[in-house]
């Protein structure tokens, strides 16, 4: 999904559905491993600069796992709230990387938003953060809902492979 969103220059990423799903199913360590693994794999396959966002992906995994543990993926509207919280985490952690490492340019659709906020008189860091805060909620809410839907669609037999997943998804002990 992230690959497609990037190729057609959408101002969203959709690259963390797998991370959030891993967090719901298998907890924080697996989610962090999936996040870092995804960015490293993406570095080799798609973009050699993607590894710079490994920390962001790891924190998205950690935040998703903590929210899943607190029952945010039991019902759809809580998944939306989880998406909004993850959006703030993602924007706050990716802004320094985008601003310092790439000078505010990511070659994605969000660059237009960064330019807009910069022209409003904000500093580079603040502009990148604001563009992240503007675009991430849409991205992460879609991501959270997709992960919630996928997790809910799994059979009980499949969920039995992941200790605690049933409780995190259905709220049952």
């Amino acid at each position: 999904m992230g690959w497609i969103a990037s190729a057609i220059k959408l101002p969203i990423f959709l690259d963390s559905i797998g991370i959030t799903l891993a967090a719901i199913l298998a907890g924080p360590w697996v989610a962090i491993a999936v996040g870092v693994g995804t960015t490293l794999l993406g570095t080799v396959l798609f973009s050699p600069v993607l590894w710079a966002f490994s920390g962001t992906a790891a924190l998205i995994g950690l935040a998703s796992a903590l929210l899943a543990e607190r029952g945010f993926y039991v019902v759809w509207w809580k998944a939306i709230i989880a998406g909004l919280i993850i959006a703030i985490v993602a924007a706050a952690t990716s802004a320094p990387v985008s601003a310092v490492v790439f000078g505010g340019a990511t070659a994605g659709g969000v660059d237009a938003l960064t330019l807009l906020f910069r022209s409003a008189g904000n500093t580079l860091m603040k502009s990148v953060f604001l563009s992240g805060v503007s675009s991430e909620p849409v991205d992460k809410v879609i991501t959270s809902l997709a992960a919630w839907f996928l997790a809910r669609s799994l059979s009980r037999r499949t969920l039995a492979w992941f200790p605690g997943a049933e409780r995190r998804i259905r709220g049952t002990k």
Partner: protein
Amino acid sequence: MSLRAVPPLAPSSKLALYLAALIGLYLIRDPVVATIAALLLGGVAIASVRIGGATIPAIRWRALAFFVGWVFVMRLALDFAGGGSLRDSGMLWLATRQAARVALLFVGALSLIATTPARAVVEELESTRLPRSMRLLVMMLVQYPRVLRGRYEQIVEAQVARGADRPRTIIQRVSHGARILLPVMQSELNAIGERAGLIHLRGLDVDVVIPDSVRSRTAVDALALVFAGSVVVIAIIARLIWR
């Protein structure tokens, strides 16, 4: 001693050198010095690819040119939007420095990928104390891009041989690639997960004592690590002195 006679660096040593070069470059404040340093380091990275007999596909170079150009223009546009003047040479140099930094980030990663065969990563992992399930996951991960690329090319060639059109535009390749690779990825990931899970469940996930004779790291690797550490320390000291 010829260059080819020097034992190849372990992947972790190459990674350390790459990261040290990047940290050093990002710590250089002066735009002219940073740009010259990026050119030199980029030259070293490209030379290492040539010496190693590896190649970087043309599409990667085009992506590099596009991305670095984008960073340069975007940085100029951001500074201009922030009230700067395009006639200000300082602003142009800042954009050049940013583009040079990103160019090294890109070229370094490309050369690291090109000169590090999956086999070398696997061999280095064999002599570490990482848990076996973790080693298996990393090994599969480093071999995965080649597996996917190979499967994609095989399937596309087979389809073209049967009269199908070859996907050419980026949109065609994205949709076609996703259609082909998603089922492949699903089956491969299932296999990896099952193997790692089995190792863990059967209690094989234990520390293994590695004899010194099997260790893959050499004196050259130790030297590379010392050099990488020194570069970072010198760059930090230089940054603190020339505030």
